[in-house]
């Protein structure tokens, strides 16, 4: 198991099979915040080996003419159920919850690379994703992991890269939630000085029925800068979260933050990245009364790092529609592209992905139109330098039912 966890922590698989490919004359949104320009991209093996114009290429290079089609880095979903939930309403297809573990609940070993949700999102331009545990009554849900969406049984990803939780209404008083969070973080702080076995016997650990996995994970959050991703909305709750960040020196990421505009200065000073759903302007609860379509604009203008979630289970690619709406309501275009690519890679330490530049891994999408228009669709999806199939169960069903042959559908294949 030790060997397993080390090799899976971050694998750069070198694909001898990958061709040398030149994507020629695409409109490259590099994901680094600069505006798009027409460039060529050379991919050697799994690595981007050249970006620019008039690149020197070897004789066996496969050249793909793009005639100005837009190119982005592969999209990265910062918060998903990819590979761990097949059908939400069927518990037997869900692996996003634990009855035993809390902060230390890792979904990593549940990941199913054959989930039908993966090809669908991949064919829509999502090349990797962070999958995270589902919400629970306990304020910390567990650990999320990053996965490449190439569908291979040899799973490529980074294990346990962030801890997820919440602060707000729904289960009991938020005062109690804050108190529990502080107690848990206090426990985490002890990991640097006290053996886990001793911590397990402390009254707080017993009270919360913590397991050693929970304590080790809490230790990583408090002592090792593991990203702590906290969903919160109410303005004053955001301030409470920022106070926790200050007190425990947390590597905090906030989710949803619908009332962030009311505390924008504090958020800006704290340099806390956020994950938002720009289309959710519904005051779904009394925590979200400030909900507004201009959230992305306000955060962007304050220079806050923004990533995107979506309410649509199974359609994580719809962060494109979300970010497009954010742009329609004032967010900058390039920040929107970054929010789906480089910002996720940077905030969650995903290594050399998320930006199209020499030396980075070649997760690249070529689009048939403006990537922020939801009607646009990928022409080419590349993961680690390998061109992926755009087929999915959905595309197979479409082919079957647009096939006009006069025979039972079961024979159309």
């Amino acid at each position: 198991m030790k060997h397993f966890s080390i090799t899976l922590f971050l694998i750069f698989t070198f694909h001898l099979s990958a061709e040398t490919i030149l994507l020629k004359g695409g409109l490259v949104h590099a994901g680094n915040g600069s505006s798009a320009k027409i460039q060529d991209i050379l991919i050697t093996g799994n690595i981007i080996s050249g970006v620019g114009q008039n690149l020197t290429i070897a004789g066996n290079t496969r050249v793909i003419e793009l005639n100005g089609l837009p190119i982005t880095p592969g999209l990265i979903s910062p918060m998903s159920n990819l590979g761990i939930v097949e059908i939400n309403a069927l518990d037997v297809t869900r692996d996003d919850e634990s009855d035993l573990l809390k902060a230390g609940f890792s979904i990593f070993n549940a990941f199913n690379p054959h989930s039908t949700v993966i090809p669908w999102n991949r064919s829509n331009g999502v090349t990797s994703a962070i999958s995270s545990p589902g919400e629970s009554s306990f304020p910390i849900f567990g650990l999320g992991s990053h996965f490449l969406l190439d569908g291979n049984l040899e799973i490529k990803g980074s294990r346990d890269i962030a801890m997820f939780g919440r602060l707000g209404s729904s289960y009991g008083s938020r005062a109690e939630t804050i108190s529990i969070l502080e107690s848990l973080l206090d426990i985490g702080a002890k990991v640097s000085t006290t053996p886990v076995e001793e911590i397990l016997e402390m009254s707080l650990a017993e009270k919360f029925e913590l397991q050693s996995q929970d304590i080790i994970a809490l230790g990583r959050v408090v002592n090792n800068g593991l990203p702590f991703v906290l969903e919160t909305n109410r303005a004053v709750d955001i301030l409470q979260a920022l106070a926790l960040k200050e007190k425990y020196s947390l590597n905090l990421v906030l989710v949803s933050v619908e009332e962030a505009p009311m505390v924008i200065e504090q958020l800006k000073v704290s340099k806390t990245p956020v994950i938002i759903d720009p289309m959710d302007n519904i005051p779904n609860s009394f925590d979200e009364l400030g909900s507004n379509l201009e959230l992305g604009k306000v955060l962007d203008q304050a220079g806050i790092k923004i990533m995107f979630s979506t309410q649509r289970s199974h359609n994580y690619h719809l962060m494109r529609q979300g970010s497009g709406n954010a742009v329609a309501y004032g967010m900058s275009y390039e920040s929107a592209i970054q929010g789906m690519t480089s910002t996720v890679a940077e905030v969650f330490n995903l290594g050399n992905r998320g930006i199209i530049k020499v030396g980075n891994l070649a997760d690249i999408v070529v689009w048939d139109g403006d990537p922020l228009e939801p009607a646009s669709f990928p022409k080419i999806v590349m993961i680690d330098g390998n061109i992926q199939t755009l087929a999915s169960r959905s595309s197979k069903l479409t082919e079957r039912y647009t096939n006009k042959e006069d025979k039972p559908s079961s024979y159309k294949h």
Partner: protein
Amino acid sequence: MKKTALLSLLLFTFIGCSESFDVDLPFGEKESINPGIENAFASTYKPMQSEPVLFKSANIYDGLGGEYFNYDLLISDGKISELGKSLSEEGVLVVDASNKWITPGIIDIHSHMGVYSAPGVSTSSDGNEATSPVTAEVWAEHSLWTQDPQFALALKGGVTSFHVLPGSANLFGGRGTTFKNISQNIIQAMKFPDAPHSLKMACGENPKRVYGNRKQSPSTRMGNMAGYRNAWIDAVEYTDGMNETDPDRRPTRDLGMDTLMGVLNGEILIQNHCYRAEEMAMMIELSKEFNYKVTTFHHAVEAYKIADLLADEGICAAMWADWWGFKHEAYDMVQANIAIIDQARNGTGCAIVHSDDAVGIQHLNQEASKAMAAGNRAGYDISKAHAMRWITSNPAKAAGILDQTGSIEIGKDADVVLWTGNPFSIYSRAEKVLVDGALAFDMNDPTVQPITDFDLGIIQPQTNRAQ
């Protein structure tokens, strides 16, 4: 096990019946047995004050498949009055619409606004009378909270009319009602004048789950079918009884039976929540057994599998552009679903993009855009002008209000949207929204942006919740 709050809400919202009506069936031809039934809770809607307005040099999708470039549109007396080139500007307010687009007001055939209001707290969960599998007696409109802030958000997205349905927990969920998107503090004052009621029915997982979990019928799909048939048997007997010439031989009035009788008499339209192809086909068979018509199948994720049948039967399918996977019966999603329905039988199919969602209802133009693009990738050649039907005239037909609204045609209600750009682009926003010729929303004029009672002073006492 706890699911996310959002998912619970999603699944709960899906617990609804759908109603359907026969789109080919003329309404109101049959003399009513009991006129008092129809007159109860009648619409008292009155259009807001309006002045004649001329949109100059607009690009227009008429909602019927037509498009006009650089045309003038005159609106007067709350109606669409003239469409042409170089119309007279005399005595009318002129709005320069060059490089902008005008469409009919967007219509959503599947909404729970006002019955699942925001905030989504238990005290506002009024969309499902999930106490018995047959609750044809309840009317969704009787649950409506007039101060739901979601109405104004939908208006901002160009929605001028919407059909509010009960949820899908029950085989028969009750009546649905169409509203004009003008918030008033009396429900009848929002009701679309002369619009027929619908009856929501629901297939599949929701009724059998809700009642099966309580160890009562239905707990299976066959139990669902038996439940519908038993109710229709009672309804036929009730209707026959009500047709007795001797008043003493008529049955005691029954609210639920009134609704089912209204369906059998062609006065109430069936809106039928149904995901799977074979279940939709079975519901059509059921409608033939008892001689009523299904108007629309809602959430029809598998409609594409029976597209020709639906076209032949003149039944609309109301669909999402891409929702799937939240439940087993929503597993076989194809993004070309809407296009396949539309193109069935030489383009005679009736496809509708619906929302069932307070966010989705604000972006039905974007949903139509995705569906059109997916259809064209699947090999069809569908224009934007044509796809505009999916969110305007087709839902108007399904709600039984196409004679009044749903297209830019002379004499129709002036329910129109002026968009900042082409409405199929994500960057375009509804700039002005007119309901019956009256400016109901203007993105550039805060005095023409509705603020509900709910929004007033709720965060800071001296200001209002920003929409």
